[in-house]
């Protein structure tokens, strides 16, 4: 069986499981006894997930298909086989172990293997299973609930009399057949999760679904705490809105990665004066009415830096970069203390790294608190220019007055974006930005270097563009000339920093190609199947 992964969202995957002529869209629920025939009939083979390495090594059966994997025993899953995480249903109530075991398994098992979690899937749990990289499920758990007289919904388990309360319109409910209902509910939920997965909003769904189960909240939070692990699986950009609708949104790997790149990669323009500005509901900020006023008032006399939650600090140059142009938050006017402290920490680090002669805080409310706390931390003095409301005439006049006599900053959006995206310090002298914002392309001497993908905020380099980025984001292939997309087995090595969605340069002895990574470097190294890079242009050499 080959698992062709078609789309990913974090650890979650969807795709086609193919064996000969038959194929199955994953994630899916199957009848295990018919799908696996008798190959799961393995009496006296139980080894709990928590069993120590010795027991696991002594008693785990090798050579059977599907292959049983275990956190304590790295089992190589043969190409074409499915990995079965036996007993995974017992992990659901142990959030810390769930995550530890998962990390151990996901690090060991080949990335393009389909994962089967037997007896674990209920309508209320399957979102978490899919979100943590499981693909194949059976009906055992729901059938058990039916035997127990329990009615299953994504919202949890209920007494069977819900069958008569009109909470579901399925065939089972109409026929008063609990077993049919429970199976249909599971299938519908798997497919519903699949829709969010394909939209790139599985995290949003997860932040909703988990609220009815404390253990699921804990799994989510523990996993977020393993940033180095989850970040590898997290795409570098998405086209979907990034909904930061709970306190947990702040701990998304995308947010931490943004902050990390801001602080370690981003190169600001040379400026002595910074002006801190509030965010706007409309993204990119500069298209909002308020920012048009700010931009007109600042008139280039300071480096514009937006203070926002949950990202913290968004310099104007990278306002198009994911997720700065993509996030949406509930607005109530209150920034909680956790939020303020986390964001102030980022701003303080930013201001410590990039020292401005003056920092003007044209802010109010929570953003002002953030700035004040950051100023405290790094011992600088803010100049405050907001009178009543940042966009009021008085405030704008004060801002204008504060900037009187300051020199124009040579803004360099391209340098900022390139540094953020590629960790490269590119000399942008002579580059020209063409097109109507935000549909920009960058030229030098009339030759195109970069174009902007407006949906993701990523710069796409041409070959000439790549020549300006000295290192990184390279995928090395063997001595062939790619005729189409570059497949995982064709990749000899890949810069470990590459994530799904990254712009990459494919390099081989006979060809160069530009393209976009369809999977992360981690996955390229651990896959025998699937597109590694969606090729854009190829050049023999």
């Amino acid at each position: 069986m080959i698992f062709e992964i078609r789309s990913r969202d974090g650890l979650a995957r969807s795709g086609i499981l193919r064996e000969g002529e038959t194929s199955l869209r994953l994630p899916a629920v199957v009848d295990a006894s018919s799908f696996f025939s008798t190959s799961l009939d393995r009496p006296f083979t139980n080894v709990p997930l928590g069993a120590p390495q010795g027991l696991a090594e002594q008693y785990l059966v090798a050579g059977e298909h599907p292959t049983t994997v275990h956190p304590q025993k790295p089992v190589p899953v043969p190409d074409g086989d499915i990995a079965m995480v036996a007993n995974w249903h017992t992990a659901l109530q142990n959030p810390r172990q769930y995550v530890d075991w998962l990390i151990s398994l996901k690090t060991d098992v080949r990335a393009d293997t389909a994962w089967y979690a037997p007896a674990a899937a209920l309508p209320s749990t399957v979102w978490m299973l899919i979100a943590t990289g499981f693909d194949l499920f059976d009906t055992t758990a729901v059938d058990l609930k039916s035997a127990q007289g329990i009615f299953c919904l994504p919202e949890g388990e209920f007494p069977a009399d819900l069958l008569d309360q009109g909470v579901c319109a399925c065939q089972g409910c109409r026929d008063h057949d609990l077993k049919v209902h429970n199976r249909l509910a599971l299938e519908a939920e798997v497919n519903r999760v699949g829709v969010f997965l394909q939209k790139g909003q599985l995290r949003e769904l997860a932040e909703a679904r988990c609220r009815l189960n404390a253990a699921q909240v804990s799994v989510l939070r523990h996993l977020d705490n393993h940033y180095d692990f989850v970040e590898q699986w997290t795409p570098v950009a998405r086209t979907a809105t990034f909904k930061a609708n709970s306190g947990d949104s702040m701990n998304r790997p995308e947010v931490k990665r943004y902050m990390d790149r801001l602080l370690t990669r981003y190169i600001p323009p040379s400026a002595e004066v910074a002006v801190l500005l509030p965010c706007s509901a409309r993204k990119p900020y500069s298209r909002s009415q308020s920012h048009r006023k700010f931009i007109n008032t600042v008139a280039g006399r300071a480096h514009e830096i937006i203070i926002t939650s949950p990202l913290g600090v968004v310099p104007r140059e990278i306002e198009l970069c994911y997720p700065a142009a993509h996030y949406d938050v509930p607005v109530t006017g209150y920034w909680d203390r956790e939020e303020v402290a986390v964001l102030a920490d980022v701003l303080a680090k930013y201001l410590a790294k990039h020292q401005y002669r003056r920092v003007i805080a044209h802010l109010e409310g929570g953003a002002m608190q953030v700035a004040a706390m950051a100023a405290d931390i790094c011992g600088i003095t803010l100049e405050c220019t907001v009178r009543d409301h940042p966009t009021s005439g008085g405030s704008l006049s004060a801002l204008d007055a504060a900037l009187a006599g300051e020199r124009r900053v040579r803004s360099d959006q391209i340098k900022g974006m390139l540094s953020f995206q590629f960790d490269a310090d590119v000399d942008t002298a002579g580059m020209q930005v063409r097109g109507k914002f935000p549909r920009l392309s960058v030229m030098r001497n009339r030759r195109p270097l970069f174009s902007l993908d407006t949906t993701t905020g990523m710069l796409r380099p041409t070959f000439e563009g790549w020549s300006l980025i000295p290192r990184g984001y390279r995928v090395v292939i063997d001595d062939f000339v790619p005729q189409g997309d570059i497949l995982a087995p064709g990749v000899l090595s890949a810069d470990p920093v590459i994530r799904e969605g990254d712009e990459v340069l494919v390099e081989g002895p006979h060809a160069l190609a530009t393209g976009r990574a369809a999977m992360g470097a981690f996955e390229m190294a651990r896959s025998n199947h699937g597109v590694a890079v969606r090729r854009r242009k190829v050049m023999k050499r």
Partner: protein
Amino acid sequence: MISKSDEKPLACWRGKDRLGPEILDSLTIIFKTGGCSWNKCRMCSYRHERFGDGTPESLAALVRDQVNWVLAHHPLETYQMVKIFTSGSFFDPDEVPPAMVDEVAATFRGKVVVAETRAEYVDGDRISRFVAAIDDGTYTIPLYIAIGLETTSDQISDKSINKGSTFARFREASETARKAGAGIKAYLLMKPLFLTEQEAIDDMVRSIEEVSPYADLISMNPCTVQSRTEVEQYWKQGAYRPPYLWSVLKVLNAVDRDVLCDPVGGGRSRGPHNCGACDHDIITAINEYALTGDRELIRAAAATDCACKEEWEFVCSHEQSHCMPLTR
């Protein structure tokens, strides 16, 4: 003269036990000893019970004091049967000094004694000597050697219990004991670790059949989760579930033979249990059966209905070894 001592046994209680057609008043004593020499069984919490400073002298004094405590608190004339347990093997000379074994025998002369030991300590001479010491002619078989065989499957014994013994060794011990004039009581453990509900049922049915020729008494213990055991660790992780009481009934019903069964901890999440609604009645039936041998009680209990029976049937037919337990 018997001096009163503060050294109590680990536990000591009165009860009633059936021996063939008779119901005897019994005294169960769990002696503090040097502790089990094997000490590796996954379900055993007694392995933490190790007393004395390791010298045979201190052990002897310890046991003597406990015997004295028993005599002081439970007058000999009030019971006919003595059931002796230690944290390991009563006949293990490293655990209970042979002199003290003799003293115990002398003390309980004229009673039926059931003494637990691992099979490897069933030594012909030792047993003969004990039998001789207690036998006053009252009982045909004055001593029953109780051996925790647990299962007749060496495979399960190894993996699920880590018993460190075999069915063959049990059979040898049985032969030795019988030759020495003692009877054999076989303890079987229903549903040790790593077995599905159905595997556990099958294991017990088979074990009872296989052990029958070698045992005068058979006692089946449904597994209970003791503190500080490997079983407890797995149980806390949801990786172990004690047997259903339905399963206990099914085994008792499936075998022809009279099997003793005391569902310790029954009805609790750490012991053999069903859903909580039907547990009490079933436990009562099993306990009454244990005293009366009336198999009709078991048949009737197994035939009762409860909302959880469908769950249990589902578990029996669908739980698979790679993915269990399905319930808690």
